[in-house]
């Protein structure tokens, strides 16, 4: 579970198929080598190592979104967090393909900056951590709904679910969650300690 990073990029369709019977080709016509060639080459997971250039958001908007990603899924003992996992990059990429999506983020970040300027005279990204937390604690909950906060609450709901999606579908998020599958195994087994735990905690 903890050695995911060593597997990252290593658990591929190619490796999975290599472990399997060579008769794979007999009926399906698929050999491991073919599968390897056929594998769709996609861009490797981009991390916030400074190499990503926003395609749709301005530098300021992108930096603000990175801050939000960091608040929503921060780095901690078990994870590098959503910022390093590239959540802002992914949202920018989606925004570059959709005016509707771009509008949500440009408008939302504009609102966030305006609200922070009214409270503390600064844009969101330049405010202190305490000031940022103060505003987020208002817009992260529907119970604070009001004509003033409504747009911010709705924007934060967008940012939250998209950062969550980006993170939990990234290698870091999958590792933190503890998903252990997507591999070829010759036998399906349930570890006895799992079964015992569940039965012990079930009604008699």
């Amino acid at each position, binding site marked *: 579970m903890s050695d995911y990073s060593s597997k990252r990029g290593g658990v*591929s369709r190619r490796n*999975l*198929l290599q*472990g*399997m019977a060579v*008769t*794979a080709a*007999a*009926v*399906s*016509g*698929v050999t491991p080598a073919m*599968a390897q*060639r*056929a594998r769709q080459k996609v861009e490797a*997971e981009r991390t916030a190592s400074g190499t990503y250039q926003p395609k749709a958001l301005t530098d300021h908007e992108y930096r603000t979104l990175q801050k939000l990603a960091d*608040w*929503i*899924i*921060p780095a901690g003992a078990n994870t590098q967090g959503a910022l390093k996992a590239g959540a802002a990059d*992914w949202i920018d*990429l*989606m925004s570059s*393909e*959709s005016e*509707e*999506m771009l509008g949500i983020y440009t408008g939302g970040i504009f609102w966030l900056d305006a609200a922070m300027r009214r409270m503390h005279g600064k844009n969101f990204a330049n405010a202190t951590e305490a000031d940022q937390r103060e505003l987020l604690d208002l817009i*992260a*909950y*529907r119970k604070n709904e009001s004509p003033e906060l409504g747009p911010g609450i709705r924007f934060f*709901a967008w940012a*939250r*679910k998209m950062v*969550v*999606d980006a993170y*939990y*579908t990234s290698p870091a*998020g*999958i590792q*933190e*969650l*503890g*998903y252990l*599958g*997507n*591999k*070829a*195994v*010759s*036998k*399906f087994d*349930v*570890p006895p300690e*799992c*079964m015992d*735990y*569940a*039965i012990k*905690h*079930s009604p008699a």
Partner: protein
Amino acid sequence: MFQIQRASPVYDVVVIGSGAGGGTVTQVLTNMGVSVALLEAGPMLNPAKDLKEHMWPYEVSHRGAGPGGAAYFGRDPYPFGYFAASFGDWKLDGEPYTVAPGSKFDWFRSRILGGRTNHYGRFSFRFSDYDFKPYSRDGLGTDWPISYDDIAPYYSKAEAFIGVTGTKENIRSTPDGVFQTPPPPRVHEALVKRACDKLNIPCIPNRMAVITHATNGRPACHYCGQCGRGCMTASNYASSYVQVIPALKTGRLKLFTNAMARELISNDEGRVTAVSYIDKETRQERMIRCRTVVLAASACESARLLLNSKSSRFPNGLANGSGMVGRNLTDSVGYDLGARIPALEGMPKYNSDGMGGMHMFVPWWNWEKMGLDFPRGYHIEIGGGFGMPEWGDFHDVCDHHEGYGAGLMDAIQKDYGVWAGLSGRGEMIPNDRTYCEIDPDVVDRYGIPVLRFHFAWSDYEYKQVNHMHETFRSILETMGGVVDGPKHLEDPTKAISVGGTIIHEVGTTRMGASPSTSVLNKYSQAHDVKNLFVADGGAFVSNPDKNPTLTICALAWRAAEYLAEEMRKGNV
């Protein structure tokens, strides 16, 4: 306009559609030495290139949400997720269908070699002896012209060939078959079984079209849990890679892809002589000559083709002397209920992928109990486990928990893998208000008149849904679960699935003893047109609570053997 050459070959058999029925007919006939031409309305499937098995969500730039995050705006371009091998949708560009006012119906079509078998659930249950005689049993619906004993040998052949897991159980509703060893239950499935044991409800290993030991050159399942994405090693059943692609190697199969059948051409003697189709790539209409035709385009698509094949001899459509083409349409009843299972909270994680579907299920158990307020049964499917995280999996947690940071992450972690879901799949009884017909006002982009659907559930189905809810709740609560739903269903008409969405539509060219009330005879041969057979779910007389694909395969196998024998005798 027709591109027909005088020298064009006459095929012994033209099969229309490459799903479970067409794939089985193609496999059986080519193995018997018969030459077959197979028309598929979609493109070829190249498993190595087209299937997304083993892809991680981060290997696609949009993570499954579609370009521009389309799914966030309710425009999900992938009806069963980006990675599924569905190659189709509820709506297809340029190929509409209509729904009559007052009806709700959704029709799923997959345009690809293998059709819907590439992604289907693969649950493979035999019909019971009593399923073939529903009218004799409760006075509703119509008896089949065949009995369980007629089809049982073909169930065995189909199971042995495609490979089905299971165990001997001697449960009358769901007869035993030729089975491969099933994998053991996952944790949540074991908990469901414990609850069922307390409630005297059977819960048994699943019967799934997955091979657990090497079979006919296909390697055993590797338990990645992704059957819905199609299987690159052909370790589960799809007609594409288990039947049609191997049949190509016999040299007796001529495959026409992107070939959308338009009309069956018949002569004055009432025999089909040719199939007219649109080559989608060139948008040309072409004809292919045939000795016999097997329709396997899916129940509704086959009915459409017959209704669109009108002539002076067949003014109501081909093989429709009974007026039954398009009638008796049914889908399965669907109802789902889930619960958070506290016993799973904090359990160590494990790889719960397994087969791409439940390892345990509940067959119908009340078949002899009188006193229910509805006539027909249902089976229960079980969901749960630690799935590969996908787009949207935690939207509900975000919505309920709100907030951000460590608290939100904790809530997500606590939610992951602690749910169990139960799905009922029940029998619908054919009724007069449920059928498909040609819409006189609408054609598709190839100029072919389209189907108009009428659909209505009845009290038989609504009451069954009530029973499902009460049963599911008692199972989930016996597990200690916190049910995500009401104590009792207030309005089953709102809880029941929309017609067509379980994708078990059958009955539109039903078989029967009498040409005046049925389209096909007991060998799936048209009463009115001797060289025409139907090998899809259209032949069904009823729609028992067992997913239709295995029975489609068995009936198709039987029809193919009969057809070959009749051809040998010179009768067709």
